[in-house]
């Protein structure tokens, strides 16, 4: 009936293939086709940032890309951050600074922060606030998030 294509991507280092209609968003491909539900979907129009993943090393909104556009790409999602039971240092800092409450925005916060810090390692606190405004959190008031990202950027231990 509908026109579907085979899409092969490397997600968190693992080669994965799935079928996708051209209109299938990358966010839905990750969650529903590949079963990687760590990436959350909020607004579906690029405002809330919950669905942020890395494509070829850069943070993007996975709700503003079609899965077919990711053919051949390297994708990193929140599931790839921890090493077994050991959380990524940024995740440990989110825990330490109470940078999450309900946790819905957290995958997007983490993936956004990692790219921001790599993009501009020498951010001031004001620049961290501006950069992290890319993701909406309705629980924390951002203070813990800003502290966690600042400590991560400064290279401090968790």
């Amino acid at each position, binding site marked *: 009936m509908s*026109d579907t294509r085979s899409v092969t991507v490397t997600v968190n280092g693992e080669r994965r293939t799935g079928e996708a209609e*051209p209109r299938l968003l990358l966010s839905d491909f990750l969650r529903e086709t590949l079963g990687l539900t760590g990436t959350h979907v909020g607004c579906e129009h690029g405002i809330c940032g919950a669905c942020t993943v890395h494509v070829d090393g850069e943070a993007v909104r996975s*709700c503003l890309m079609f899965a077919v556009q990711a053919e051949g790409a390297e994708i990193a999602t929140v599931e790839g951050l921890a090493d077994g039971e050991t959380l990524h240092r940024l995740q440990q800092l989110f825990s330490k600074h109470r940078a999450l409450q309900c946790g819905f925005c957290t995958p997007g916060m983490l993936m956004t922060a990692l790219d921001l810090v790599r993009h501009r390692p020498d951010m001031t606190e004001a620049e961290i*606030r501006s*950069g992290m*405004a890319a993701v909406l959190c309705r629980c924390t008031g951002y203070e813990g998030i800003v502290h966690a990202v600042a400590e991560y950027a400064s290279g401090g231990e968790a």
Partner: protein
Amino acid sequence: MKPPRFDYHAPESLEEALDLLADSGPDARILAGGQSLVPVLNFRLARPGVLIDINRVTGIAGIGDAGDRLTIGAMTRQREIEVSETVARAAPLLHEATGHVAHLPIRSRGTIGGSMANADPAAEDPAVAAALEATMVCRSRRGERRIAAAGFFVDVLTTALEPDEMLVAVEIPKIPAGAGAAFAEISRRDGDFALAGVAAQIALANGRVSDARISACGLGPAPVRFREAEEILLDGACEPAAIAAAAASVAAACDPHGDVHASAAYRRQLAEAMTRRALASARERAGGSA
């Protein structure tokens, strides 16, 4: 929501893309970075029958130095422009404006060509193009057409592009020696659409303004140069009184609309404030004292 169905094409050459565009008729849309088009599809505010994805087309991305101007391929990502030292040096107005474009993850995908062709009144790139008199290089199966920015931006979300034409590059004149540029913008949160933004570039010769460029985003249906304000500055020292007069002129001449984010009257106030800020910074960067 989810996008409606469409026929999807991902050509790898410009010729193939232009053939698809010509053969598909007005029901086709070009998919560049997708940061404006995909939300509109997700909301089903647009239902194009055909999407021509130009992300895999070769030869229409990258920043080139062409003597007195930069040639920036339409598919150049805003993130690449933001970090380009060539752009920071030769087109500092574009460099600063690009930092105001949404958020980093949006700039990872968003393109300069997409922003120009979408012609959102609140977008920064069209305002820079208007101020610097950029040239839009457009291609169709019929050939190449070069359109000056002044004739390219027609109205809200409306450009001079014909249905079979694609924007392939933007030519940005380099900043002259002794000139300074600044972009000032106000939005509700960093990264949101501009309530008002002003682009300014001032050239000084012997302490006198030899060239002045002022344009804006969020302050009218399409970006224009504010000629009367520029005239006020020409041949003067761009001192605070002249800046105040130019800012008042921009506030009087602009054509803002009111919506849930800001009233037209408030945007007019912002026009004045942003013009003052942009001109003061541009003058300082041009080497004049504040």
